């Protein structure tokens, strides 16, 4: 079935007609593989992506990092490709390729001239099932991911701090374990671990193909049938993505992380928060607007109160990860000005939050944020790869195409009352973690 869904962008705030919208089609192959096509004919380029509904939060206990490890190993050989030949072939065709892993998904992509799409599909479909790994591959690539951990985490006190905070935020859910893995478990990852994860999750009925660029939907469908459609579905794919759920969080958590490499201390607070759900995005939309109003820019409430008025902070921000399969977080950060203690910075943050919960948000702020949201939909059209990512992320995290296309409208419909109600629900200290990042104490 070919369904052409024109995502009509929300235009309720402004009356000017919008002339642009992304052109999206979707299909499902007989083996269950979902296909999304985003057309952009401005340049003869295509982005070809395969997303698996499997990430680090789907790993077995004790094997943290195996999803990401396997992602690296997919660039080794198959029955027909020598190790490294995949990327070498993409490069010979003038393309670039890469992959990434998160809690809820693993994705592989190539960016090439549009006429090379068949070759990309041929190779990507090949490594969905035909991976061949040796013990040597395991040994070398394990060293690489350990160096990656060194670079991203162990060399960076802020990243180490974040790991400890996430672990404290989730009492029972796998989001508390880092995507890259805990070092002691990474060191033990084996060929069997990687292949077991591969066998469980890599199959067409657990994958989404996203093709974006100078292509025609019927042409993509024909190629998808030819290359991916012939791979049998895995009948043993777990019916549900089972994750151990969070119990009620009833006790506020606090932690202090000290590291000699910290030059600029700061306070970070995160609250457990609901995510966007299929056909139920309203509360997440309110939280998205709340994060913008509170700490999205220099005109937001935190910046005005703490950076401009009281000069307590040199930097403030709020962040909310709306798209997530399971419960996400709403995060706040305050970087104190010189001479301001972390306690004072935290108190100032709590004063702002108390004021917000008391007074709500004014309409001016709300209108500015909505104008930004509306414009960001126009600017987003300039980046086809960004659009492809948006769909891939949503579809691997429990949302549908319709949810993605409704989202701008749901955001525009958020009222000041919605924002206040969402704030009152989520800004509950019992579900929060407050962390202080500090330098080592002197004189010990």
């Amino acid at each position, binding site marked *: 079935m070919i369904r052409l869904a024109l995502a009509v962008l929300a235009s309720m705030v402004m009356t000017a007609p919008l002339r*642009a919208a992304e052109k999206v089609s979707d299909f499902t192959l007989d083996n269950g593989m979902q296909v999304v096509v985003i057309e952009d004919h401005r*340049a003869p380029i295509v982005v070809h992506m395969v997303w698996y509904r499997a990430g680090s939060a789907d790993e077995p206990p004790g094997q943290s990092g195996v999803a990401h490890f396997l992602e690296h190993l997919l660039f080794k050989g198959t029955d027909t490709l020598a190790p*490294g030949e995949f*990327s070498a072939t993409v490069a010979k065709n003038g393309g670039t390729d890469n992959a990434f892993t998160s809690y809820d998904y693993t994705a592989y992509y190539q960016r090439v*001239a549009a006429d090379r799409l068949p070759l990309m599909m041929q190779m990507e479909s090949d490594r969905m099932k035909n991976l061949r790994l040796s013990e040597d591959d395991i040994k070398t690539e*394990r060293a690489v991911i350990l160096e990656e951990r060194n670079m991203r985490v162990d060399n960076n006190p802020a990243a180490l701090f974040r790991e400890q905070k996430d672990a404290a935020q989730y009492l029972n859910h796998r989001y508390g374990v880092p995507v890259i893995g805990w070092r002691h478990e990474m060191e033990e990852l084996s060929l069997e671990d990687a292949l077991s994860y591969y066998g469980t999750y890599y199959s067409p009925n657990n994958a989404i193909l996203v093709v974006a660029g100078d292509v025609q939907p019927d042409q993509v469908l024909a190629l998808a049938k030819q290359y991916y459609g012939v791979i049998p579905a895995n009948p043993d794919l777990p019916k549900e993505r089972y994750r151990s759920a969070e119990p009620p969080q009833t006790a506020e958590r606090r932690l202090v992380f000290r590291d000699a490499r910290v030059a600029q201390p700061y306070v970070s607070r995160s609250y457990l928060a609901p995510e966007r759900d299929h056909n139920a995005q309203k509360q997440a939309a309110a939280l998205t607007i709340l994060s913008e109003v509170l700490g999205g820019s220099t005109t937001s409430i935190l910046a005005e109160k703490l950076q401009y008025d009281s000069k307590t902070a*040199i930097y403030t921000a709020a962040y909310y990860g709306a798209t997530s399969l399971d419960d996400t977080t709403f995060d706040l950060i305050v970087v104190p000005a*010189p001479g301001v203690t972390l306690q004072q910075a935290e108190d100032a943050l709590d004063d702002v939050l108390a004021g917000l919960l008391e007074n709500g948000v004014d309409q001016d702020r709300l209108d500015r944020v909505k104008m*930004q949201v509306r414009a960001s939909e126009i600017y987003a059209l300039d980046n086809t790869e960004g659009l492809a990512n948006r769909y891939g992320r949503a579809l691997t995290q429990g949302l549908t195409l319709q949810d993605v296309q409704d989202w701008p409208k749901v955001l525009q419909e958020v009222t000041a009352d919605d924002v206040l109600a969402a704030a009152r629900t989520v800004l509950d200290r019992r579900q929060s973690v407050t962390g202080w990042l500090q330098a080592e104490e002197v004189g010990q």
Partner: protein
Amino acid sequence: MKMMRFILPLVLLVAALPARAEVNIQEVTSPGGIKAWLVEDHEIPFTALELRFKGGAVLDLPGKKGATNLMVGLLEEGAGDLDSRAFARATEELAAGFSYDLSDDVVSVSARFLTENRDQAVGLLRDSLINPRFDPDAIDRVRQQVLSGILSDEKNPRDIASKQFRKLVYGDHPYAQDQSGTVDSVSALTRDDLVMAHRNALTRDRLYVSAVGDITPGELSALLDRLLADLPKAGPELPGVAALHFPGGVHVTDFATPQSIALFAQPGIDREDPDFFAAYILDLILGGGSFESRLMQEVREKRGLTYGVYTYLVDKEGAKLWMGSVASGNERIAQAVQVIRDEWQKMLDHGVTQQELDDAKTYLTGAYPLRFDGNATIANIMVGMQADGMPIDYIATRNDQVNAVTLDDVQRVAKRLLDPAKLTFVVVGQPEGLPAN
């Protein structure tokens, strides 16, 4: 109307021909004499505009290191009748985006604005460039942010490495100093210093402009005069060429962290040198940012010594370097450094193979047209081309220049350029088996 056109090969063979880039660039000159390159594309109702002012942080006056950096940070912190907060609100109400950036050699301004409120957005951008306020409270606020950044850099191994590298290689040229300045120099900056930095850095004689999107040549022409005509005509002279020092060896800075960061470099090549494309291909094969490079294969893929190792040609106004970087655990960095040295020597002794050259060419010529894929991206490429003095038809001829490079060219340039004795490593961390100087 669609102004980006590409001609595709008619048939797809195993060794397919690359797409050909034919970006249709128009040169627009305003009545006031300001030139810009334009690609018209009315598909999405916004325009991406790029401005580059040559000069940048090297224009800091003696004792005023960091003045240009702080000045650039203040351009969006109040202008014309609007103080910092009012300016930010006005920008958000229009959903325009302005970003102001600095490097040693360039002040960059990137803007995007919707067609529906283009005039108002350009008015705000104009004020920020021509009439920044430099209000005392804004100066203090942004100064604190800069100082915090400087202190953080002092405890970040990558930034420490960069600082050590500058000191070692650039001698007494302004490149030796970080553009942010030091705690002392930034603390001492006055409002007058910032006014002077503004006067010196944003001038018409070193300005380059490009625009891509929903705008006609006539509209752009009027925009250019309104936006830029009131800038000062000329700025002070730029510092000359840097005398570079490459003593060779490994220079270690002790810093307690598990992974050592290494920067390495030797003399590079000018973009205008006839051998540039051969050198560019040589760099790609050696370590130029792809998985297929020799260094990536030898250091990462075969030995697992790093997550990433890269080389690149640095083309600063007053310094041409061939640089690279790698990061490895303290216990393994010595081995990574040795493998890199060995590959350097091997490349000098034996050059590249015909297969490597062919693969590099198909990659470069195939990848080139893929760069031109969005208003913001194209505007950014076009302004860089102008600043580098490239002709307006460069895009159409660039792949021919790559294809013209022969195996003899590459072998000759390998002998000419590669210089293992000058290859100098700066390492920050606690590397085992690499003695600290």
